[in-house]
Each structure stands twice: as structure tokens, then as C-alpha cells.
């Protein structure tokens, strides 16, 4: 009889109930909130649902030494997590992004690329703020990249510079990407006049297939020569795009933008979520990271819109840019371009900015990969 009670007691000590703390419960609530936002509000469901469930997985209270937790070497979760730690998931995602991105709006209006560059100032604004708040340069760099509004880039850079902060950085990058409409709209309205919001832009010219094939090759060579440290991201991005545009590698392109990116997104979301264990996640740093991430999004939107207005100073009437596409320089493809469209149509319901906004939007992806490369070469 005593033996039975003993083994029951022993079993009890293994269960989650015994090892539970309020932090675990809080994180479980966070996970459920993210899942709910993904499913009910449809905010980035492909990311928030895996991350949310990952948080549930990561926050089941475990006794030490069972070779199950994500931080215990050799456990199943730990092996899946290697792709995040060693940073080989993000380039694979970039391959898929390249294979699904149409750069033709960018090729048609190359000058809009500069807006994508301007929005990257948000990264460095947050970088400086983080330094001022006492983060080390490495940590500050990893936090700043949240302003690139690009999940894979953020994970890639933070796995290099500040692996211990990666969970918070990734979760905050992805949540703010989902919140882009809420964050960007007030900034856009604040900075633009009614007249500017009504500017109509000429529809982009048609781009020939030859131009679209040459673009990834030229763009890769230029950007990679300037920032070799961005090689994994830039190389995969443009390689994926070449697969898409070449016309002869349709199968590879379809795999890259379909099954491959789906597999990697699932794994990255799940393991990043699971890495947010209560004791590592519920810290003052995480809170600061969330605040800084928000700042970087706001600064980035600010700079994008202001830069569009700045460019207008030099452009002739009829060529002017509607500054409402400035926000789209923050990558978050295609969410921020969609914000341009919705806000634009609020003021002129026949003024479609979506395709114009896609140009700074995809330029933002290139820009944030370059910025990540620069930060890596200075800090890494």
C-alpha cells in the first residue's frame, strides 16, 4: 500500500501541476491570446498560431533532466530549435519569400526603392535607444532589427548577436507586424496633408520578363558585394526570385514558396514560441524589448512617410509620390502596403495605392536584409 502511495507521489512530482508557477500560467495565457488573435482576428495566423502553440509547449512545467525541454541538449525540441539557433531557418524562409515576391513594381519605379531605405532608419533609431537604455551593443543591434519588420531577418540577426533575447525579439517583431495597421495609420495621418493623401500616381509600366530575370542577378551582385555579411539572406532571397522569374524552374519555385516555406515557417514559429520559457521570457528586458520594438516601428513609419514627402520636393507635378505609401517601406510584406491602400481609399475611394506601395514594401525586405548584414559586420 505504502509503495503505491509512494509511486503516486513520485508521479505527482513529475506532473505539470506540481511544478507549476504563476509565470508558467501567465505565459500559457499569452500563448492562448496569440492563438486567439490568429484565429479570430486572422492577424498573421500562419505565424501567430504556431508561435502561440509553441508558447504552450514551452511553458508546460517540467522537472529538470528529463531530456524534453527545448533548452536541454539532444531533446527533440532542442534539435528542431537548432535551425533557429544556428540561423539556418531564416535563409530558407527567404528563399520562399524570393520565390513568391514580384519585384516588377519595383523595377517599374526604381526611385521608390529609396523609401524602402529610409524606413530602415527605424532599425537604427531603436538601436540607439536600446544603447541608451543600457543594453550591450550586440543586444541593441538585435533589438533594433525589430524595426526591419521582418521576422526571419530578426531571428537571423538575434540568433547571431543575442540568442538569449531571441524569443522576445521574435515574438515582438511578429506581433507588431500583425499590428501594423494600428501602429502606422495614426503616424501616416499625422504627417500628411489632405491634399497629399489625394495624390494619384500613374500606374506602373509593364515590365518585361527579361528585366525581371536580370533583376535578381544584378541586385544580388550589387548588394552582396556591398554587404557580404548579408549573404545568407540576400543570396537566398534573390535566388528564390530567379527561380520564380526564370520561367524554366517552375517546379523549384513552387516548392520553395509552397511546401518548403510552410515546413520551415511551422518549425520556426513552433520552436520560437517554445523558446519563450517563463523564466527566460518574463523579464524586464523582454518588456523593454517590446517598448523598443514599438518605437522602431513608429520611427520607421515616420521616416518612410517623411522621405516620400522629401522626394516630392524634387519631383515634377504629375510624378509626385503619394506619401501614404511611405509607411510601406517597413517591410512586413504585404501588410504595410495594404495599410497604404486602405488609408488611401479612405480619402479617395478610387485611388488604389496597393501596387505602388508594393515597391517600397519589397525594397524594405532588401533594405532590412542589408541593414542586418551591416549590423552583423559591425557587431558580430
Amino acid at each position, binding site marked *: 500500500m505504502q509503495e503505491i502511495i509512494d509511486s503516486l507521489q513520485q508521479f505527482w512530482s513529475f506532473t505539470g501541476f506540481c511544478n507549476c508557477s504563476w509565470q508558467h500560467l501567465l505565459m500559457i495565457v499569452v500563448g492562448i491570446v496569440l492563438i486567439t488573435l490568429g484565429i479570430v482576428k486572422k492577424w498573421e495566423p500562419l505565424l501567430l498560431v504556431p508561435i502561440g502553440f509553441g508558447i504552450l509547449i514551452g511553458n508546460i512545467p517540467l522537472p529538470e533532466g528529463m531530456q524534453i525541454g527545448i533548452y536541454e541538449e539532444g531533446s527533440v525540441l532542442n534539435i528542431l530549435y537548432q535551425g533557429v539557433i544556428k540561423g539556418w531557418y531564416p535563409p530558407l524562409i527567404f528563399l520562399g519569400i524570393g520565390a513568391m515576391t514580384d519585384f516588377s513594381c519595383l523595377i517599374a519605379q526604381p526611385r521608390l526603392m529609396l523609401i524602402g531605405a529610409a524606413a530602415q532608419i527605424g532599425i537604427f533609431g531603436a538601436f540607439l535607444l536600446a544603447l541608451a537604455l543600457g543594453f550591450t551593443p550586440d543586444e541593441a543591434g538585435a533589438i533594433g532589427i525589430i524595426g526591419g519588420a521582418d521576422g526571419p531577418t530578426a531571428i537571423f540577426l538575434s540568433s547571431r548577436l543575442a540568442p538569449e533575447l531571441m524569443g522576445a525579439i521574435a515574438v515582438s517583431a511578429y506581433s507588431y507586424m500583425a499590428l501594423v495597421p494600428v501602429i502606422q495609420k495614426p503616424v501616416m495621418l499625422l504627417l500628411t496633408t489632405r491634399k497629399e493623401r489625394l495624390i494619384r500616381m500613374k500606374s506602373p509600366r509593364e515590365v518585361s520578363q*527579361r528585366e525581371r530575370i536580370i533583376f535578381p542577378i544584378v541586385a544580388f551582385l550589387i548588394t552582396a558585394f556591398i554587404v557580404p555579411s548579408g549573404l545568407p539572406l540576400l543570396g537566398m532571397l534573390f535566388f528564390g526570385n530567379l527561380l520564380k522569374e526564370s520561367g524554366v524552374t517552375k517546379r523549384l519555385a513552387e516548392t520553395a514558396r509552397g511546401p518548403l516555406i510552410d515546413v520551415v515557417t511551422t518549425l520556426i514559429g513552433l520552436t520560437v514560441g517554445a523558446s519563450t520559457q517563463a523564466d527566460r521570457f518574463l523579464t524586464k528586458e523582454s518588456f523593454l524589448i517590446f517598448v523598443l520594438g514599438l518605437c522602431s516601428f513608429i520611427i520607421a513609419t515616420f521616416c518612410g512617410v517623411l522621405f516620400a514627402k522629401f522626394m516630392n520636393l524634387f519631383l515634377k507635378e504629375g510624378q509626385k509620390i503619394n506619401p501614404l505609401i511611405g509607411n510601406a517601406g517597413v517591410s512586413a510584406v504585404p501588410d504595410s502596403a495594404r495599410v497604404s491602400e486602405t488609408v488611401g481609399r479612405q480619402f479617395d475611394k478610387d485611388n488604389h495605392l496597393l501596387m505602388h506601395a508594393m515597391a517600397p514594401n519589397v525594397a524594405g525586405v532588401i533594405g532590412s536584409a542589408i541593414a542586418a548584414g551591416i549590423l552583423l559586420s559591425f557587431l558580430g
Partner: protein
Amino acid sequence: MRNGLIISLVAVLVVFVSLAVLAILYRLLGEAFRRYGRKNGRAEAASDGKSAPETSGGNDIKTEETQLPEEPQGIHDRESYVITIGHGKPDFGSENARPHSPSGNAGTARPYSPAARTHQYSAQDESAGRKDTAENVPAQTAQPASADTITASLPGTITEIRVSAGDTVKAGQIVAILSAMKMDNEIEAEYSGTVAAVNVNPGDNVREGSVIITLSR
């Protein structure tokens, strides 16, 4: 901190320079291509993954061509089109009859019209001609006042059609949903009238200016 400021400045500069180099280079390339394209007339546009629909025979065959499983953003230049062969006078006849529309130039010419499809052949043959006119010469207002078209204002995929031929629509009524970049756009009727023809099917990719619905007032 001072270091950080320097890093930031340098980094912002580098981001700008690399994208600016890319922009300038592509600007020049684009111009070169346009010049090249002009020299070669429409050959460039036609070789762009699509060619004008060939017509042959008198069979009542509905062919579906180049249905590419592309994302909406991929449809700039490729799209699905349905050709109805040999029923009455197919309306791409009118398209082929004047391959160089007055407003067309090498850069923007559409090798064929996505509107070149007939779903309601009998009543539509005549209005289809007008519809083509309306599409290729959007600036011209001198078109028969009895027919009007509702066109796509941006490229995307038609996900829903809310009216069918014969329905009366009021100005401002939502007639179709066009999805672009995962975003649903409501397409409204600009005028009140009767639907003469629905020119697309749900799931079709359309480009800017494609006719979605033909109205008669």
C-alpha cells in the same frame, strides 16, 4: 553610445547607397529595355510569356490556357484567359482585327484582352465589341451611352461575383469582390443599370482595366 551613433550613420548611409545604386542602375536598364522594346515593336511584349490567342476551326470548344497557379502579385503580366472558339462571332475577332489600338504603344499595349471571352454569347456579341473599345481606349468618352463597363481598378483575382446577367444594379452597389495581396476590394457599380454580361468568373485573374461587368443603362 558615440560608437553606436557612428555605426548607425554609416549603416543608414550604406543602406541608402546600395538601394540607390540599384535604383539608378535599374532606371538605366529600364530605359535601355524600353528603347530596345520600341525597336522591336510588340515582339518584346508578345514574347513576355504569352501570345495572342490563336483562333482556328469552327468547333464549340472552350479552351483554358495558361492557368498559372500564381500568387496574386504574379499576375501583372500573366493571366488566365478563356477562349471560346467558333460560337457565333467570337469577340477576340474584333481584338485581332485591330491589333494596334489607337492608344496602344509598345510599352503598355495589351496583346490580348482578358475581356475577350463570351459567357453569354447570343446577346453579347455586339456589346462585346463596345466593351473592347471601352477597355483599350479608356480615355475616350465617345462610346455608346447605352453600354457601360465596370472595370478592375487594380490587378488581382476575382473572388466573388454578386450579380448575374439581367439583374438591375444601383450606383454604388457592390457587384464583385476583387482580391489583391490577400486583400478584398469591393467593386462598386458607378452607374445604375442592368447587367448585360458578367465578363469574368470567380477565380479569374484580372489586370488593371479589365472589364468585369458590362452594364446597359
